[in-house]
C-alpha cells in the first residue's frame, strides 16, 4: 500500500513540477528527482530502481525521439540512492543537500551523452543556479514527503 502511495506522490510531484514550469519559466524545480531520492533512501535500491524508472517514464512524455533514456537515468539514480541508504542517514541535513545536488549533476552528465558533446555545452549544462535551487529546495521537500509517508 505504501508502495502505491509512493507512485501516487511521484505522479503528484510531476504535476506540480509541470505547474511550476508555467509559474517560473526557465527555472527547473527537480521535484520528481527529489521524490525518487526520498523514497529510494527510505525503501532501498530495488524500490528506488522501480520508482525511478516510472518517474523517468513520466518525464519521457516531454522527451523528443527515443524512449527509455530518462527512465534508465532516473532508475539508475534511484538504485544508487537506495544503495547509499545503507551508508548515509536520510534525515541528516547534509544528505538532504548533498545527495540531490550529486543526483542532479549525474542526470546532467548522463543527459550530455544524449547530445552532441562539446565544451560549450558542458559549460552551459552545469549551472550553479540549479545547484543552489536544488540545495535550498531539497530539505523542504524531504520534510513534506516525510509527513506524507
Amino acid at each position, binding site marked *: 500500500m505504501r508502495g502505491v502511495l509512493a507512485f501516487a506522490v511521484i*505522479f503528484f510531484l510531476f*504535476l*506540480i*513540477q*509541470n*505547474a*511550476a*514550469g*508555467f*509559474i517560473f*519559466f*526557465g527555472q*527547473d*524545480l*527537480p521535484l*520528481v528527482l527529489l521524490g525518487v531520492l526520498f523514497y529510494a533512501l527510505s525503501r532501498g*535500491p*530495488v524500490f528506488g*530502481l*522501480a520508482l525511478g*524508472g516510472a518517474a523517468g*517514464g*513520466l*518525464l*519521457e*512524455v*516531454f*522527451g*523528443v*525521439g*527515443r*524512449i*527509455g*533514456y530518462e*527512465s*534508465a537515468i532516473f*532508475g539508475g539514480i534511484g*538504485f544508487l540512492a537506495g544503495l547509499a541508504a545503507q551508508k548515509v542517514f536520510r534525515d541528516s541535513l547534509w544528505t538532504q543537500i548533498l545527495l540531490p545536488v550529486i543526483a542532479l549533476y549525474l542526470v546532467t552528465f548522463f*543527459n550530455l551523452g*544524449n*547530445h552532441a558533446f562539446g565544451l560549450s*555545452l558542458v559549460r*552551459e*549544462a552545469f*549551472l550553479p543556479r540549479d545547484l543552489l535551487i536544488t540545495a535550498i529546495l531539497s530539505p523542504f521537500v524531504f520534510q513534506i514527503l516525510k509527513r506524507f509517508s
Partner: protein
Amino acid sequence: MLKKTSVVIGVASFLFFLTTLPVSQAVSIKGSAASFLEWPLVLSKETAAFVTDLYRFRQNARENRALKTRLAEIDSKAFDSRELALENARLTKLLGLVPPQSLSFKRLIHSRVIGRSPSAWNRVFLIDKGTKDGVKMNRVVLSDFSLVGKIVESGPSVSKVLLMQDPNFRIGVLVQRTRQEGVLTGSLSGRCAIRYLSKDEEIKIGDEVETAGFGGLFPKGVRVGKIVRVRKDAGQNYQEAELEPFADPGRAEEVTCAGS
C-alpha cells in the same frame, strides 16, 4: 536476495529494451501516453495559470498601460505604412515588377499549451491538438504571429513543440535589413544564437530577423526576433549574433500551428 536480484535484472532489462525501440514506435508510445496524461496536465496548468494571474496582477496592469500607449504609436505608424504600401503598389505596377508574395498560411490551428518540459535538455511544450485536428510534423508554431518553435511529434490529441530555445532546434533565418542568411540555434541556457552569418555586412543591434524559408519546409518571412549582441572572432569567416525572440515562451498559453 535472489528475488531482489531478479527484480533488478528484470527492470534493468525492460529499461534497456525501451531504449532499443525504433524512434517511430517510441513516438507512437509517447503520443498515446501524452494523450492519456492530457487531463491531469491541463488541470495542473490551469492551477498554475490561476496562481500566475494573481501573482502578475500588478505587472499586467502596468503592461496594459504601456501597451495602450504603444498601440496609439502603432496606429499612427500603420497609417504611414498604408500610404507607403499604396505608393509601392503604384510604383510596382508602373515598373512592371512581380509583387512579392505576402506571408499567408492555408490553415491555422489554435491550441492551448498544456505542459512544459521541466528540463533544459528538452525545451518543449505539449499542446492540446494532435493528428485528429490536422497537426502535422514540422509545422511552425507561432505566438502573436512570431515564431515559437516547430512540431516535432504528433499524437492523436496531443503534440509536442520543440521551442527555438532548445539546443537541438535549427532553422534557417535571415536578417531583414541586410538579407544575410544564417542558422538559428537554441542552447541549454535558453539563449538563441544565429550562426554562419557572413562578415561582409555590419549587423546592428536591433536588426530584425525572420525565417528564410530554405528548402520549402518552413514558410519564409515569419518574424523571429531581434539582434541583441553581435560577436566577431578574429580568424573566423563568420560572425555570430545573439537573438531575443519576439515571442516569449514563458508567457505563451495559447499558440498557433501554421501550415503553409
